[in-house]
């Protein structure tokens, strides 16, 4: 039994935010049933990356990843007759998750302002780009747009060349994954209270707001007037020699902010002549652009002759925060990830055996677990209370 065993979740999601939120709950044993359009299923079934096996509708690695431990049920919510079936399902669940454009919920009969009169016990959670009541000029957004509306885009990368465009984040879906974390946190918090009070809640997660809240340390100082705001692309940056450097087999990242880091660098490089010209505690007190450039130049020369994992190990043993810039291959090979069992084997009925990334937290009593691969399209649903016959 895991922590969320016995919790029933209806997932009305068709995008990454809602599906990942459902996955976060299902990983801990929640009984998650997703409704899919008959015939085509969730749009994420058509999205990359694709497995070599499985064929259309079943070969999406994205869908396979996002929908482990879930079951699927075919129901076309666009049909008028679907509402009675939907309402019957809602009677039997604790939580409903959705990630459609704002206003969609009211259209299917689950108006955020009034659902509690009929279903006072229900926890209803929506994930949208800008919340449930966006202004007219924010009704359409992909994750790229949310990332740039949140401030992260404009300020990425650090040390930007202002003539070149600001960048998107890593991968395609960072804003959705971030928002899903907040959504899952709020859903479980609402369940925690509901166990005692019996009352549900409406939870309205805004991806833009989630991302902006992630920069609270900086934005909080700006909005309170303690830090300057400006059109500078460097407004979130920290100053100092920290940077990504090329090495023989890839890239390394070095962080340096304290005397201990400087001392460790000296030991690592064998106390070269150029370091002796630097004043003590220059990193904290006399960190000029010239010195930063000089340090970066010398570190760059040295790292070009090094391999990333070996350099990181030697530096870390001396107290210098130097790390490898890992790619997916490095992660799968990481001895630390192996030790923690971050990748887990799971066989998908159409795609075959795979290795799935899991979660960053290990719970000693109720660990997250992958037990069931993502549902196939049109797979018969059995033993689902209240859902019999919905597939036909």
């Amino acid at each position, binding site marked *: 039994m895991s*922590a*969320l065993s016995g919790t029933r979740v209806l997932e009305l999601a068709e995008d990454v935010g809602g599906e990942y939120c459902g996955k976060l709950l299902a990983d*801990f044993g929640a009984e998650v049933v997703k409704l899919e359009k008959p015939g085509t299923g969730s749009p994420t079934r058509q999205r990359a990356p694709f497995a070599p096996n499985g064929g259309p509708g079943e070969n999406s690695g*994205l869908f396979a990843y996002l929908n482990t431990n879930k079951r699927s049920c075919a129901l076309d919510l666009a049909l008028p007759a679907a509402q009675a079936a939907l309402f019957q399902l809602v009677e039997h669940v604790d939580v409903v998750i959705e990630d459609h454009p704002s206003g969609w919920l009211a259209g299917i009969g689950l108006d955020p302002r009034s659902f509690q009169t009929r279903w006072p016990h229900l926890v209803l959670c929506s994930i949208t780009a800008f919340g449930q009541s966006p202004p*007219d*000029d924010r009704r*359409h*957004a*992909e994750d*790229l*747009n949310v990332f740039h509306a*949140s401030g992260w885009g*404009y300020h990425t*990368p650090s040390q*930007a060349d202002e003539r070149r*465009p600001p*960048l*998107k984040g*890593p991968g395609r*879906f960072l804003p959705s994954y*971030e*928002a899903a*974390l*907040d959504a*899952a946190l709020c859903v479980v918090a*609402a369940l*925690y209270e509901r*166990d*005692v009070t019996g009352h549900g809640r409406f939870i309205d*997660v805004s991806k833009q707001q989630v991302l902006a*809240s992630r*920069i609270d*340390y900086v*934005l*909080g*100082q*700006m909005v*309170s*007037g303690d*830090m300057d705001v400006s*059109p500078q692309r460097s*407004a979130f940056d*920290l100053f100092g020699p*920290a940077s990504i450097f090329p090495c023989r087999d*890839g890239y*390394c*990242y070095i*962080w340096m*902010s304290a005397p201990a880091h400087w001392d460790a660098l000296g030991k690592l490089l064998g106390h070269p002549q150029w370091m002796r010209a630097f004043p003590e505690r220059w990193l904290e007190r006399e960190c000029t652009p010239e010195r930063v450039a000089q340090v970066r130049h010398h570190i760059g020369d040295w790292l070009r002759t090094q391999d990333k994992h070996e350099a990181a190990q030697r530096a870390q043993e001396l107290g210098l925060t130097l790390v490898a*810039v890992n*790619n997916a291959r*490095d*992660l799968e090979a990481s001895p*630390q990830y192996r030790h*923690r069992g971050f990748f887990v084997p799971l066989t998908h009925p159409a795609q075959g055996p795979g290795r799935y*990334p899991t*979660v960053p*937290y290990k*719970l000693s*009593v109720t660990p997250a677990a992958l037990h069931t691969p993502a549902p196939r399209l049109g797979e018969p649903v059995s033993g689902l209370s209240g859902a019999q016959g919905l597939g036909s």
Partner: protein
Amino acid sequence: MSPAARGGPLQGVRVIELTKVWAGPYTGKLLAFLGAEVIRVESRESLDVTRTYGVADIDKAPGFQAVNPQKLSVQIDMKTKEGVGLILALLGKSDVVIENLRPGAVKRLGLGYDTVKSAKPDIVYVSMGMYGSEGPLSYQTGYAPCFAALGGLSALVGYEGEAPGGMNVRYGDSTYGTAAAYATMVALLHRRRTGVGQYIDVSAVESMTSMIGDTVMDYTLNGTVQRCEGNRHPEMAPHGVYPCREQQWISIAVASDPAWSALAEVMARPELAQHPDFRTLAARKAREPELDRLLAAWTASQDAQDLAGRLQARGIAAAKSQSSVDLVADPQLWARQFYRTVSDRDGDTRTVVGPGWSMTGEASIADAAPRLGEHNAYVLGQLLGLSAAERQGFADAGVTR
């Protein structure tokens, strides 16, 4: 407002923070935003550096105040035996403890999970480390941009065919803190239902990887190691960030052929919609550099906000790339009460950043970050039941203040 009366789903939950800097405090902040009473254990002997950045007065540090609203502070020197005794007594009256000290530090202090569990068998104990608390690399340490580099994110952020530049240097701590908060919440629910506490071991680096799970799947399924791709997206074109006047930038994402038709009309180039070079996604992807040049030439003379509005009116996903000026002026963020006003003990107010959600019946967010030891009387007196004489004794011995 008394923490006991703030409302919210976690009203009545008590969380103790043995945390520093950003990630651990962010975990506590999210739980406080949900209504928990969150108490920071602090001391001058082991001060959170964010209380000292940029200011002489450790009670007025802006960065600290940004991340620690809504919390309480008790001053206990955890490097003394008596201090550890007081902390264990406090944990005996608490539900959760969060620590993000250096690897192994809690054990050396006598506050490891086994010890705490003896004092409070059903505690939810949350340990946060760059690589987690055990394993061959758990001795390594780093700051947020190290998490992003190790977790696989930095390698994906950069211009096509060039060296990676990585996410903004500030990224990482708060995401990691949120992952820890979610795990904590799951453990709290389990404890409410069964009476059983547990130990949670959170890895910052793995938290980063969970932000690119699908990219990692591409490797495990196909052996594909993805690299920097600028602003490209395999399933959308155009998909990019384009220059506007006065050094502004606009993000535009076209996810369908009808959206491309609409964009061509807004550009006053309707012939592009049906042009064989651009009509389909495959065609647009094949000529993406040319497509990006076309768009950039058209956007360059325009105002980003105005253009975003005109594109939105035609159903096209577009948004200004917001600078810090835009962010603090964003009318939508103000309308949703993302920015909140909190007060300190003297009645002075300041604005803080709220949570990423709204919810019915949410907790009141009204209190500023605490002064060092502001709640000594409440914690030592009321919660631990120490008499005035006992408290004076601890203060004289330097264990508390």
